[in-house]
């Protein structure tokens, strides 16, 4: 990756930040396949019939642009990926809509939105699908982090016995909207805002930090999590960080990938409180507390 200029920093530095590996797939664009595969897996895991899915959310964090050249017909701009996905998944009653522009906070926000709709409305379930893929041979290092491509999906169901939402808290700071121009300010704001967002979510849930069994991280640099653990006064061992080196940071799919892997390795126990935290360009600092 260093040779192909997909990362700028030294390998030593990136390793110290927790990104010990780099793997670049030599395959053609399979992004749509990834989305479909993630969504189908979530549907299969839940056992929910497609007809009961009332809403399909598709989220992408990268700033969307219409395919085709400037001269392409205006109709080209109404070629929606979320409709295509609904069609591929054969969801007969789903209201398909896309969300965007919440950076890495997007999937957590979509889950929160879906949960509120499911709780309030007449649909028993909503499917949240998210994914991002960077263009081939592009720089994958952003603000001390190495980015992967990924897709993930979550079925949000009324009365689900697993991973119940206990609290959702998002601190928005729209004054930071100009990410390229405000990179330094964002780096400076990251930790104080992260500390505030996490503490607020815990308080909103009526819990203490010591009640949180696991912090499920976004797979940004391990060093940033070590600093945040110090700020929060919690042991770094309560942050499930195994996927930072293996998976890297995937815009918004990290938490779902991590939860899935935690579940697979038997880390999670029923009743555990889990805190999912991320920062999203835009900017927002988002915490979601689940009870497993």
């Amino acid at each position, binding site marked *: 990756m260093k040779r192909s200029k997909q990362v700028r920093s030294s390998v030593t530095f990136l390793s110290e930040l927790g990104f010990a590996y780099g793997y670049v797939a030599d395959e053609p664009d399979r992004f749509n396949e990834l989305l479909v595969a993630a969504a189908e897996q979530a549907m299969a895991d839940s056992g929910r019939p497609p007809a009961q899915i009332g809403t399909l959310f598709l989220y992408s964090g990268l700033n969307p642009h219409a395919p085709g050249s400037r001269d392409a017909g205006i109709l080209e701009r109404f070629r929606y990926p979320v409709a295509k996905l609904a069609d591929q998944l054969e969801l007969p009653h789903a209201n398909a809509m896309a969300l965007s522009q919440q950076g890495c906070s997007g999937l957590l926000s979509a889950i929160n939105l879906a949960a509120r709709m499911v709780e309030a409305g007449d649909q028993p379930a909503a499917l949240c699908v998210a994914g991002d893929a960077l263009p081939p041979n592009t720089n994958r290092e952003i603000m001390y982090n190495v980015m992967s491509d990924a897709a993930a999906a979550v079925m949000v169901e009324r009365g689900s016995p697993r991973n119940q939402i206990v609290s959702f808290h998002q601190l928005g*700071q729209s004054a930071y909207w100009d990410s390229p121009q405000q990179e*330094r300010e964002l780096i*400076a704001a990251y930790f104080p805002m992260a500390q505030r967002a996490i503490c607020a979510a815990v308080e909103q849930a009526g819990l203490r930090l010591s009640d949180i069994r696991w912090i499920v991280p976004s797979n940004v640099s391990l*060093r940033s999590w070590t600093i945040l653990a110090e700020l929060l006064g919690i042991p770094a061992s309560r942050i499930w960080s195994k996927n930072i080196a293996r998976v890297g940071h995937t815009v918004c799919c990290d938490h779902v990938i991590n939860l899935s892997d935690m579940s697979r390795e038997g880390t999670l126990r029923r009743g555990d409180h889990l805190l999912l935290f991320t920062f999203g360009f835009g900017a927002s600092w988002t915490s979601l507390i689940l009870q497993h």
Partner: protein
Amino acid sequence: MTRGDSLLITGSTGMAGREITRHLLTRSDGPLSLLLHDTGKALSRPRLLREVFRLEPTPALIRRIRLVRGDLTKDHLGLPSSLYGELAQTVDGIIHAAATTRFDLPLAEARRVNVLATEQLVRFARRCRNLAHFGLLSTVFVSGRRKGRILESERAHTAGFVNTYEQSKYEAEACLESSDVPYVIYRLSTLVGDSRTGFTSHFTTPHQALRVMHLGLASLVPGLPACSVDLIPTEWAAATIVNHFLNQAAAGRAIHVVAGPARSYSLAQVIDESYERLGELDPAWKARHYPKPAIATQAAFQLLVRSAEQARDSLMIGVLGMLRYFTEQFSYPKDFDATNLNGADPAPDIGDYYGRVVAYCLKTRWGRRA
């Protein structure tokens, strides 16, 4: 000392030295020999009076000042032998305010400026026939990484130092203590400007920390939230030192020139008040909603510094480096004994004037605007 005594002053263009000289010019009558090196070298006496001491250059004041161009780190203070000898015959008192107050110098360089200069001045003082007092401006942070009650009567310790400034001043004090000159050491906390106007001649680390907050680049501040941050007004410190220097009798001791915890903010309060004042004075800044920096452990802060260094992010290296040398003290809470102030007027309460300091920084854009 009497009001008519002849004094030699070093560092008279520095942040503390210029206020001390200004007070001496208005409250005593004797001749003042100002030993200048860099900053004031090119200035005439009238310009010095007007621009540095903020006084009208009357003939009487001009006559009282003698500018001596020298170099404290050199033998004979870098002066011709005849002048060196003449000063030794006439000087009744010395105030040694010249120093480097940079925290990030290599130890050898800090020693050269702060220790070697003191050694040279002590040599000179021994030659003086009528020397009544030798006043050294120092810092309460010669106490380094010690915690708790810090007595004026004690200096020696093995706790280590946060920066080379502290260590070099510690060694300069030791040099004076082991001499036979009639010394008084004035250990100041942190000068922050004029309490009546907010004016400061030098934008030092506390002002730069405020600037970092204004730029929205303050991320972590290492320290303990309740640690007292002892800031003192320049004019109060100068008046206190001059009063003491002119009136005191006993030599061979140190005096803590501090505000004390009751008149100081805690670290958390400094941050809160800085944001409060900046917000009041600069609504456009307030609208940006920059978060206050988090008060962090040293371990967390050092990791952030390491990241900036490894990423070769020069701006963040500068910002964090400045904070690093200044704020580490806030992990070592201290309560400074001030017995030897001997009933001097207490320092103004920081809450009564901090807003003026912030306003002055904003108005002048930290010295970039006249």
